[in-house]
C-alpha cells in the first residue's frame, strides 16, 4: 500500500510562494492569510483598520438586506471624498481671482483632473443620499431604541454635518451655479428671526458672497467640518460596539 505523496508544487504555488513568503512581504504582514477561525479573529482584533469591527457578529447582521451596507458605504464615501479632495487641493487656491480658473485648469490641464473632480462631485451627492437612506434603514428596523438612543442623536448630528460639508463645497468652483446657490442658501439662513442676519454675516464674512465667504467655506470644507465629522463618526462607531453591536430582537 503506497503512502500518498504530497502533490508536487505547481507553477502557481511557486509564484505564490515567491510573492508572499519572502522577507519583505513578511516584514509588512507578519502572518499569512488567516485560514483558521482563531487567526481570523486575531487579525480583526489586531489589524489597525479592521479593529473597528468586533471579531464576531450576529448571524442576521451579515445579511445584506439587514443594513444594505448603507452606514459602511457612507463612511466609504467619506474616505473616498478625502482622497479625491486632497488631490483637488493640490491645484486649487481659494481666491476669487483664481478659484474658477483653477477648476478649469484641473479639468483641462491636469492629468486625470476632470476625473478627480467628477469623482469628488458624484461621491458627495452619493454620500448625502446614502446617509439619508441609512437613517431610513435604522428607523424602519427600530434600531434607535434603547440602549441606542444616543447613537441615533449622534447620527442626526452626522446628517447635519454631511449636509454642511456638501453645502460648503458647493461654493468652491466659483461659477454661477456655486455663487447663486450659496446666495440663496445663506439667504435662507439669514431669514431666521433675530439671529438670522448675524448668522448670515458670520457665515459669509460680509453682506454678500465674496472673498471672505470663499475662504470661510473653504476652511470649513477642507478641515473644520471633516474633523468634526470624523470625531462624531468615531463616537458613532464606538457606540455601536458599546451598545452591544447592531440591534436585534430581544
Amino acid at each position, binding site marked *: 500500500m503506497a503512502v500518498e505523496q504530497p502533490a508536487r508544487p505547481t507553477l502557481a504555488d511557486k509564484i505564490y510562494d515567491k510573492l508572499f513568503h519572502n522577507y519583505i512581504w513578511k516584514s509588512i504582514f507578519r502572518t499569512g492569510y488567516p485560514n483558521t477561525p482563531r487567526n481570523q479573529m486575531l487579525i480583526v482584533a489586531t489589524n489597525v483598520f479592521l479593529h473597528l469591527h468586533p471579531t464576531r457578529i450576529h448571524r442576521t447582521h451579515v445579511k445584506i438586506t439587514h443594513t444594505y451596507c448603507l452606514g459602511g458605504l457612507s463612511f466609504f464615501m467619506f474616505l473616498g471624498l478625502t482622497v479625491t479632495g486632497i488631490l483637488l487641493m493640490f491645484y486649487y487656491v481659494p481666491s476669487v481671482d483664481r478659484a474658477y480658473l483653477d477648476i478649469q485648469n484641473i479639468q483641462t490641464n491636469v492629468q486625470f483632473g476632470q*476625473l478627480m473632480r467628477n469623482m469628488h462631485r458624484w461621491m458627495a451627492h452619493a454620500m448625502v443620499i446614502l446617509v439619508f437612506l441609512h437613517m431610513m434603514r435604522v428607523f424602519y428596523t427600530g434600531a434607535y431604541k434603547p440602549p441606542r438612543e444616543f447613537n441615533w442623536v449622534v447620527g442626526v448630528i452626522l446628517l447635519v454635518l454631511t449636509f454642511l460639508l456638501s453645502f460648503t463645497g458647493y461654493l468652491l468652483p466659483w461659477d454661477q451655479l456655486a455663487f447663486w446657490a450659496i446666495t440663496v442658501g445663506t439667504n435662507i439662513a439669514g431669514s431666521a428671526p433675530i439671529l438670522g442676519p448675524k448668522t448670515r454675516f458670520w457665515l459669509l464674512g460680509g453682506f454678500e458672497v465674496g472673498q471672505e465667504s470663499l475662504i470661510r467655506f473653504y476652511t470649513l470644507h477642507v478641515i473644520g467640518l471633516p474633523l468634526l465629522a470624523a470625531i462624531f463618526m468615531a463616537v458613532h462607531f464606538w457606540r455601536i460596539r458599546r451598545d452591544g453591536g447592531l440591534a436585534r430582537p430581544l
Partner: protein
Amino acid sequence: MATAVVARPVARPQPRARDEEVLVWPDLVFIEFISALVFTLALFALSLLVNAPLLDQANADVTPNPSKAPWYLLNLQELLLHMQPALAGVIVPTVWLVIMAAFPYFDQDNEGQGVWFGTENSVRLTVVSAIVAVVGTWLLILWDTGKIAMAMNDWFGISGGRTFAFLENVRALQSQLPWPEWSHRIPYLWFDLKILDEGYTGLGATSFHYLDLPGFLVEQAIPIAAMVGLPSLLIYALWKIGWVNTRRDAIIVLFTGFVAVFGVLTVTGTAFRGAGQELVWPWQLDVQEGIPGEGH
C-alpha cells in the same frame, strides 16, 4: 468596573448570543469589500460618462433665473414659497431635527427592534402615510400656486368669480378679503420691543409691537396649523381605525410622512420650478441667464 457607574436604570446592552455569531473575517469583511468595489466602479463609470457641471465664472451682477440652492436644500426653498421665510428656512428644519433626535426618548419600547418593520401594522402604516403625504403635499402645492382654481375653471367651467377669489390660494386670503384697516396694526405689546439685529436687508432691527393679522394668518398661522394639524389628523384617524396603537406606530406615521414630504418638496423644487419659481413641467425648465445690471 465601568458598569458600576451606571446607577440609573438606563438600558444595558443585550447579552451576546455567542452560538448565533459568525466571524467578521471572512463573512463581513467580504461583503464590505464587495460593496466598496461595486460603488467604486459605479462612481468611476459615472465620472467617465458625466462631467461635473461648471458654468460661467461667478458674477454678482448677473442673476440666473431661477436661482436655486443645492438640490438637498430645494425642499426648503420650495417651502419658502408658501410661508414666512424664517418659518420655512430655519424654524421648520430646526424643530424637525430636534423632534427627530428625540424619537428614541419618546419611543422606548424595545418591541420590534432590529428587524425590518418588526411591529404589527408597520408596513401598512408606512404605505398609507407615504401615499397620504405625497398626494396631500402635491395638492397643497397645486392649491397654493392657484393651479386647482385654474383647472376647475379651464376644465370644468367652475369659477367662484370674485366672491370666492379668496380661496384661490393662501395669499388670496390676505389680498382678496375686505380686511378692516385696524387688522393690519393690532398692538400686542405696550412698547416697541426691538431685538439685536441690524438686518442685512436694511429693514432695521426686528420689532415686536404690532401684529399684521392677515399677514400673520397667511404667512405663519395657517402654514403652522397645516404642518402640525395635518399629521396629527392623520395619526388621529389611524388611531381611530385601530392601526396606531403605540408610540412606535405614531412615529412611523410621522417619519414616513417626513420622508415623503421631503421627497415631494425636493422633486418639486428641482424639476418643477422654472423662471420666477413658477410651477412648470420639467421640460419647460430653462434657466435664463440674467441681464447684467439687473441683479437681485
